[in-house]
């Protein structure tokens, strides 16, 4: 399956629980340029709700989510675009 979004950078948060994926995303976003797309990899199901919520609060654009089966584990790929400079 091809990735619907072309990410400029990738962030691996596999094996980490809340709040680490969100904290790492927010740190990564500080270095990211406006207009760039970040792909966040996570195996914490909470990310499905948390990433859109984070985007809504911080004014960033949530592009979409992709689920992948990896053995008996699910991997979630979220795509976030930086549209807000702060």
């Amino acid at each position, binding site marked *: 399956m091809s990735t619907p979004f072309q990410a400029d950078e990738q962030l691996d948060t596999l094996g980490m*629980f*809340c709040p*680490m994926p*969100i*904290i790492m*995303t*927010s740190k990564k976003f500080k270095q990211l340029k406006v207009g760039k797309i970040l792909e966040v990899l996570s195996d914490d199901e909470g990310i499905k709700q948390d990433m859109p919520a*984070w985007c809504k609060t*911080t004014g960033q654009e949530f592009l979409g989510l992709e689920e992948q089966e990896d053995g008996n584990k699910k991997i979630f790929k979220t795509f976030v675009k930086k549209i807000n400079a702060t």
Partner: protein
Amino acid sequence: MTTLPTPNIAPENVLNNLRETKPESVTIVCLSGDMDKAMAAFIIATGAASMGMRVTMFFTFWGLNMLRRKGSTSNVKDWLRRLFGLLNRGGADTLPLSKFHFLGAGTAMMKKVMKQSKMPGIPELMDIAQDLGVRFIACTTTMGLLGITKDTLIDSVDQYAGVATYLSEAKNGSVNLFI
């Protein structure tokens, strides 16, 4: 007795800068010195800070143990407070679980499980919180009552204050928690 280095920026200025840059605010009162409750408090604090909110944590009573240096006792000459300080040791990584502590065995097991699942412990969460700009306020009433002196607290305390400081911050906030 060593003295803490005095910050070169006035707290009011820092607070005003924060007000401008982080308009939404979260205030958390940390009363409990239990590890599980402290985890909840720091997860909410770090989460809120990474969502761009201004976060203030007010540590009072048992919660103040998190801001104390490891194994620190009390420094006052009063023997009652000294004894209390011996019984109530400080340190963020020595907090017990509120349930299943089992004289330390349960808490040690929980820490092991957390490490296995790459979950940060209380000292790590505190570092992350500091890094994200979460402000720590130490309750001076508790310090006086339990004989805890400034030099036995960690360096990352931003302010030593009382209820008025906490309330003036909390009244502007949309999220206010008591843990």
